[in-house]
């Protein structure tokens, strides 16, 4: 009963990760999770050892303390090296300024009076800070409603997508069934299809279903996403079968195993899936643009385009709303950067 050959075969032959095939066998050692949620494209085996075992590993971060021996550290610092060091810092500062400048400019315009915006003078700083743009945005447009719509749609899509993909990920990782390979391939292939291929037919479909123009017209097609299945499968496959076998001997079925054993171990995975789905859905534009018609039901990106259509060149108001629309995601990113970066690197979206 314990550890059937079938299970062994499934876990041992997945993909081409030879090292995982051996590493994930046996007792849960420090190597158990090694490399399984590894960055696609990284071959870390020759280099460092995972320090964040059991979580999604941060690619290329967390070494600031010099935990990874940097080559030049062991040598004496020559003048040439000091010059190179200064040059690197100089380039980094310039790059940082260039990357930040557009965002700085957005914030500046959002808080500038319109005289500044339309002035032909070069002003890198508002002549006076003002909240007028925000007042105009909130008084002339249903901005609070749009914000709420974005929250509602993003929440429901995230809940549906993450739940559905965790379930599917478990099936692909730990269960053996007919047609598994073909279905997995088919499911993954859907991620390559851009919305513009499907939009006309999806539009007719939601019209036929009688949900065109409602939240469900946005939510249901958006929740039909295989994004996350690959990540979920990779994570769950690394969970040792022994943990499940023990529960099986106690008479637990797959549902109980999933709920009581797998899910509690999947917290880092769930965190990554939730963050990425929230980001993706909050920012989504093309499909909500097609699926919604009533301005009261718009999400923030659609509202932003609507505002531009109404206000034309009122750049102050446009930037104020743009700032409101990106703030939740930016804050989330700053708080959970590690998970974001890992997830983005491994799922390959964006």
């Amino acid at each position, binding site marked *: 009963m314990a550890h059937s050959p079938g299970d062994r075969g499934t876990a041992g032959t997945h993909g081409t*990760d030879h090292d995982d095939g051996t590493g994930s066998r046996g007792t849960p050692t420090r190597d158990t999770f090694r490399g399984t949620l590894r960055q696609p494209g990284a071959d*870390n085996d020759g280099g460092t050892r995972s320090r964040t075992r059991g979580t999604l590993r941060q690619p290329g971060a967390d070494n600031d303390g010099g935990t990874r021996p940097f080559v030049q550290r062991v040598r004496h610092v020559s003048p040439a090296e000091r010059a190179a060091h200064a040059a690197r810092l100089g380039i980094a500062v310039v790059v940082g300024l260039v990357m930040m400048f557009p965002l700085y400019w957005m914030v500046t315009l959002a808080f500038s009076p319109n005289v500044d915006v339309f002035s032909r003078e070069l002003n890198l700083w508002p002549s006076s800070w003002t909240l007028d743009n925000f007042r105009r945005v909130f008084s002339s447009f249903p901005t609070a409603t749009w914000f709420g719509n974005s929250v509602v749609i993003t929440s429901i899509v995230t809940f549906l997508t993450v739940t559905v993909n965790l379930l599917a990920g478990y099936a692909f990782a730990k269960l*053996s*069934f007919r047609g598994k390979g073909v279905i997995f391939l088919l499911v993954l292939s859907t991620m390559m299809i851009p919305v513009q291929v499907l939009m006309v037919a999806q539009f*007719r479909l939601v019209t036929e279903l009688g949900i065109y123009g409602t939240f469900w017209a946005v939510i249901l097609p958006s929740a039909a996403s295989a994004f996350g299945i690959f990540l979920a499968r990779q994570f769950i496959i690394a969970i040792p079968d022994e943990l499940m076998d023990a529960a099986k001997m106690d008479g637990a079925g797959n549902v109980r195993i999933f709920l009581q054993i797998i899910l509690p171990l999947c917290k880092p995975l769930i965190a990554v899936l939730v963050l990425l789905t929230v*980001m993706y859905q909050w920012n989504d534009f*093309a499909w909500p643009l097609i699926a919604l018609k009533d301005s009261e039901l718009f999400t923030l990106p659609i509202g932003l385009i609507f505002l531009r259509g109404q206000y034309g060149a009122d750049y102050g108001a446009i930037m104020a709303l743009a700032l409101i629309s990106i703030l939740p995601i930016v804050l989330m990113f700053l708080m959970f950067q590690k998970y974001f970066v890992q997830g983005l690197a491994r799922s390959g979206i964006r």
Partner: protein
Amino acid sequence: MSAGTSEREGSAAPATPASTYAPGAGRSGKRFRSTTTAYGFLTPNLVLLGLFLFLPLGWAFLISFQESSGFGASGWVGLDNYRRLITDPTFWQSTADTGVFTLITVPLSLALGLGLAVLMNSVLPGRRLFRTLIYLPMVISGVATALIGVLLFDEATGIINKLLGAGGADTVPGQSNGTAAFASIILVTLWIRVGFNMVIYLAGLQGISPELYEAARLEGANSWQQFRHITVPLVGPSTFFLLIMDVIYSFQVFDTIFVMTGGGPGRSTSVLVTYAYENGFVTRDQSYAAAIGIVIFLLTLIFTAVQWYGNRSRDTAG
């Protein structure tokens, strides 16, 4: 181990079920139960994908063989929509723009991503902060980043022209000139995209053993030679993975172009995805839009097949 892990995982997966059928008495009943359970877990996913992805995909094919007549039933016109594509200069213009845009943005994203990854992997004070700054644009909505782009490049009031003017340089006709508009879209795309390339390359660099650089230095290799002969070849798998992701991204770029230029001025920045949207939901020629969609789908399919084949060749070669 290669960067195409995700793709190869997918392609290798069909081998998995066969190896799980272990011989032995009393196992077939269990396997049947296991299959039933597995499909239980898969059903929500398969229902959603079937209804909202596979059904529309098939439907899109059908629509592309019909004539556009507003809504409801339409007559079959065979390949008429596709014939029209061949003689439509805007379609060819959009195809060419898609290609040029991809050919410019992908190598630049790769080069900038690798350069920044090497920089951010070196000894540098405030490295964490710099990384955060470079990542930030990739999490911001395409609409917001594009609107910022509009403001930066606005001909009359854009800050870039003001800066150029203050520096005594000629201003850039960001809206009225096709080439300038195209360039502004490319710059915004790079701004959004370079962070993702850096993430992947940073991970790739972690896998290179420091001893290799040590040995190269003992042999007298300078920094450029080390970069050229150690770093570049050894991040090859990351490059391959990024090549795929970047091509798909550039090929499907919609938000940036739709918001920044709407395909204009004239048709100078029209790409396939914006042209399809325009036909489907502005001029309401939905059958024609479906045909363009199918062309996009087929091009994506061809690219996927080529990279899959290339990936297999790489496996056998290396």
